[in-house]
């Protein structure tokens, strides 16, 4: 199977955009790019603070059920209204940030670590090792993420941890692919050959020389991917496969409110929250990519 089996879309786009951007006027591009990235950082920082400080800033407890207060529209007492069980939507939103951000960042970091290891070793070792590792990666990539996550969740049972495991299984291959490509490029560079001639061993060359130069696009992918992970986890929770009720989680909140066309606040704000966070990571990811562009530093 060729590389057409998902080098991650983001990555391919990023790679091509990287090559293309070098011909634009730098002034305009700089301002526009870093402007958006700054907004992205602001959004993310804001949500991170929310997640950290939720227990202190939430007006109510997220699981406080009060059936007499159910389905109230936004008011002074409940800024974003209440849901079917009378729970305060705002508080659930704030607590939901904790789950989403925590799970997504963890999945991405762990998936990236494993994927980079696999891909890096594959590219450096070459030969049958590379072949075997890459075919294995291809295999995992055959399965659509949501479906495989569903299958694993069905086999293992519902719950946050199980869903995370399911996501991890499908998450690492794109990093492996990218890492392999990047390390492969670096491996044939002359400074790596120089390192060999000086006598450094393969481990040292891979870790101290190649990887720092290959990390750039990987960091970009990580950043962009957190947004993607949030979407997938919310999707799984929406389907009922993610968190266990009554945990507050954005996808689950949308699911609970989806039939309620009249009481639109139940589902809308949660979705809006997802949207803004993911946008923030996408903005930041774009900015990080531009910042790490070696051509911007080189003459």
């Amino acid at each position, binding site marked *: 199977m060729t590389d057409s089996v998902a080098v991650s879309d983001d990555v391919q786009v990023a790679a091509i955009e990287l090559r293309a951007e070098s011909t634009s006027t730098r002034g305009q591009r700089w301002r526009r790019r870093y402007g958006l990235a700054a907004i992205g950082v602001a959004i993310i920082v804001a949500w991170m603070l929310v997640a950290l400080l939720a227990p202190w800033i939430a007006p109510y407890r997220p699981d406080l059920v009060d059936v007499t207060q159910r389905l109230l529209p936004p008011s002074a007492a409940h800024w974003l209204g209440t849901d079917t069980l009378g729970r305060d939507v705002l508080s659930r939103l704030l607590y939901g940030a904790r789950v989403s951000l925590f799970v997504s960042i963890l999945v991405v970091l762990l998936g990236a670590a494993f994927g980079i290891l696999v891909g890096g070793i594959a590219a450096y070792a070459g030969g049958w090792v590379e072949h075997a590792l890459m075919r294995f990666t291809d295999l995992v990539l055959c*399965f659509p993420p949501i479906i495989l996550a569903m299958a694993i969740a069905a086999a293992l049972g519902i719950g946050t941890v199980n869903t995370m495991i399911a996501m991890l299984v499908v998450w690492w291959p794109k990093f492996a692919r990218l890492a392999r490509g990047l390390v492969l490029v670096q491996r044939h560079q002359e400074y790596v050959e120089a390192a060999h001639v000086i006598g450094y061993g393969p481990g040292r060359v891979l870790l101290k020389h190649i990887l720092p130069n290959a990390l750039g696009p990987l960091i970009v992918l990580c950043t962009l991917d957190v947004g993607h992970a949030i979407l997938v986890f919310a999707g799984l929770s929406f389907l009922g496969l993610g968190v266990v009720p009554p945990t507050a989680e954005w996808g689950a909140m*949308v699911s609970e409110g989806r039939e309620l066309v009249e009481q639109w606040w139940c589902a809308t704000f949660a979705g809006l929250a997802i949207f803004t966070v993911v946008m923030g990571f996408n903005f930041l990811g774009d900015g990080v990519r531009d910042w790490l562009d070696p051509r911007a530093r080189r003459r």
Partner: protein
Amino acid sequence: MFRYVSNRLITSVVLALFATLVVFLIASVVPGDPILAMLGDLAASKPEIVAEYRARWGLDLPLWQQYWIFLQRLFHGDLGISISTGRPVLADIAQYAPATVELGTIAFVLSIAIGVPFGIVAAVWRDSWVDHSARFISLVGVSSPVFWLAFIALTIFYGWLQIAPGPGRLDPIDFPPANVTGSFLIDSLIAGDWETFKTAFAHLILPSLVLCAATLGLITRITRASMLETLGQDYVRVARAKGMKERAVIVRHALPNALIPVITLAGLAYANLLTGTVLTETIFSWPGLGRYTFRSALSLDLPAIMGMTLLFAIVYLIINLLVDLSYALVDPRVLKR
């Protein structure tokens, strides 16, 4: 050319076999009594059914023999019986597939039809308002959770404005057209039933728009990026130096090259669309494979889940194979020795 095709074909088949192994292993990993998992409570209480099941799938045999039986059954089209529907999984697939294919294909066509021209224009008129809006729209599309978008769309257009029809492929009072392909659009045209065609079409609009949002964003971005890169190439400059009009340069020199990576991603996107309709179908009550898979997951209908997982993996492989082949047709360098 033949060598290239056969090479890809062989790789795909091998991977497909491995996929079956993976599916089989997942199924065997299920904790608890496999009989219960495969048959469900009701059936498992009947000893004849249990015995028959045992015999059919060879549950007392070692694992690799079970796998062999599994493979054989697979080649006969036997994916097991779905617990929830009680029918062979294959029959379920046959029933629900057309709805998903119809939805996914329309969404795909929309993404390409809008995304590609948008991306091209954005690249040619770089830094114009078209470019900025293209970048913005693609960003929004890629960042939106599809289930939320679906909810908003339904709420606004169906709930408040009342201009879109409700969930489902048709209104509750309508009858589906005579089943030829399974696609309501095509079948109603074949039957000459203009009314049903209009209803089916109206019902398709919202879900396909929602479904295509993310893909649209991606296609726009990749087309734009690829076009930008191609426009900076030497041979484009040579074409201008020959005295070609700018439009001719773009259409005859830049486009063919720029579209090559777009083809790859488009193929992948189509595969993603076909296999990723779960959320959209759930919200729009679309009777397709996505919703079927979801229901099976919820009710722990293991045969159905395994069957669907395998099906989707095969779909992926086939589409990737087709993409590889189209690559060979489009880019002469691929076949070079």
